[in-house]
């Protein structure tokens, strides 16, 4: 059997999996009955509903013709990786990673790390330009978030301030 719409086929699968997962999770809570709903009641109903809908979507994707097959296309691994990585590294610098004993490196370090990593996601990477951008962003963020809005962030690396 041919897949007539790739997008619908896989989104249907996704909905089915998520629906089943939630319904299965709900069964470990008290379901109760209509008059006295337990914590599992509503999620169970929704989970079943979602998997049914997912099934219908998948089925339609196998049966109903589409013009171009609605291909998913290539996945942009490069931006995906660098944007998410930039975000994670920023989180690690600002909050530290207590589980491996890493102490916060602070906002300024985080901004430079984020800018340099995220910039790799684009088509071109110009070291000088990125450095200037990181510097500008650091100054703006310091002024806006630390001086103006007085948010409680570690600004400098913990080993310098402590």
């Amino acid at each position, binding site marked *: 059997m041919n897949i007539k719409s790739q997008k619908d086929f896989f*989104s249907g699968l996704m909905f089915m999996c998520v629906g089943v997962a939630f319904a299965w999770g709900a069964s470990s809570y008290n379901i109760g009955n209509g008059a006295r709903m337990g914590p599992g009641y509503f999620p169970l109903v*929704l989970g079943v509903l979602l998997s049914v809908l997912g099934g219908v979507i998948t089925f339609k994707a196998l049966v109903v013709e589409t013009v171009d097959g609605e291909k998913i296309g290539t996945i942009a691994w490069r931006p995906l990786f660098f944007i998410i990585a930039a975000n994670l590294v920023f989180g690690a610098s600002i909050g530290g990673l207590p589980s491996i004993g890493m102490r916060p490196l602070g906002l300024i370090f985080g901004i430079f790390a984020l800018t340099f990593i995220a910039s790799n996601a684009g088509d071109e990477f110009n070291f000088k330009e990125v450095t200037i951008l990181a510097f500008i962003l650091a100054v703006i963020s310091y002024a806006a978030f630390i001086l103006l809005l007085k948010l409680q*962030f570690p600004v400098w690396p913990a080993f310098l301030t402590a």
Partner: protein
Amino acid sequence: MELFDNLALGFGVAFTLQNLMYAFIGCLLGTLIGVLPGIGPLATIAMLLPATYALPPVAALIMLAGIYYGAQYGGSTTAILVNLPGESSSVVTVIDGYQMARQGRAGPALAAAGLGSFFAGCVGTLILAAFAAPLTELAFKFGPAEYFSLMILGLVGAVVLASGSLIKAIAMIILGLLLGMVGTDVNSGVARYSLDIAELTDGIGFIVIAMGVFGYGEIISNLSKHESERKIFVASVTGLMPTKEDFKNMVPAVLRGTALGSLLGILPGGGAVMAAFAAYTLEKKTKLRPGEVPFGKGNIRGVAAPEAANNAGSQTSFIPLLTLGIPPNAVMALMVGAMTIHNIQPGPQVMTSNPELFWGLIASMWIGNLMLVILNLPLIGIWIKLLSVPYRWLFPAIVLFCSIGVYSTNNNTFDIWMVAIFGVIGYLFIKLGTEPAPLLLGFILGPMMEEYLRRALLLSRGDWSVFVTRPLSASLLAAAMVLLVVVLMPSVKSKREEAFVED
């Protein structure tokens, strides 16, 4: 007149120096971010929300409303000047607006959008003020069964009027409802789906979802397109004033757009997008005057009507939110989240228990609209400069502000890990062609819906017929059914698809 007393109270609140300043800052920031191509009002509000945390509730809401309008306005500017709709409601503005810009008439196009929106905003505010009180009265007659049915109607409305596949949109809503289940159940105290992670017992933050899905997901998808597809042609602007002829064409279009927009905005799920589409279709149906430019070739009515409609719609979509506490669309869902952060539970009780806030907000909406005209028309040069900032400088800044915004909500890095996960999920949604806006709406409504369902069935001792035996509830459900049936009818179905692929 009670209406005028109320409005006077509102203007008294809004016209303090402090609140005027926050309205101004909100509009400025909203426009600043909204003008940037590829960032819609949702991402803008999510990104700027943390900036309001430190403010008192009234000021915070005023600023947020300003941000919302600013983002919408900024979106139109981008649409007209660079042929890039910043948000879905300005998709139709692009068609004629950009053509006008290419013919060197960007100025009149911007003026038509600005003045049209301002007029629509004034009317919308008046309607909001007039309807708020009676609707609030009605809201007090609502029991849990009515609220549940109303939410069903709202959710159905949201998918019916949305673009794209109906069944996928419904699935996204349910997915959103399920995500809303994560966290401690208020009745039993059971931590649901928390996977033994302490932070998840508080549930998933809506900012995390909004920023991950709308912010990161969009950025990744934008970056995956080649530079040439993002190529920006910035039209130059010379002379703002429309000609006399332009005004003659514009005025009736603005009036029609405003009427249509106000009407569609009140309907659950309607809001700005549908209003703009409907207004453009209506204009296309009316006869061209002799010597008038055809639609799609730079007709000023094609700019004025949808812009007026989307602004009127975004104004009146505050009505269900403020009177019933039910967000009619994703942007309003974000507003609910914002209000909850400031300890305001949106709903009928806001008006009675907190009249300064309620009327102050309404008054400042009008002030915000006025400020936007002032901000946008003379300062257009600055916004154009912003448009020429290359994307490779923009996106690291957006990633940074999202990260900082997310972290500052709870000062907890856990939220940053979560936003990374939702960024990946958001990109997945784009790749699978599933619209994320209904998900956010479902997410906000999830816990409310469960609570009302539970209460309704508790009162009826488990009898489901309560939803159809109570007249108000039954008519709400019937309306939802009618909406669904109408959309599924073959003739309407093909029309609907047509409307959304409009050249």
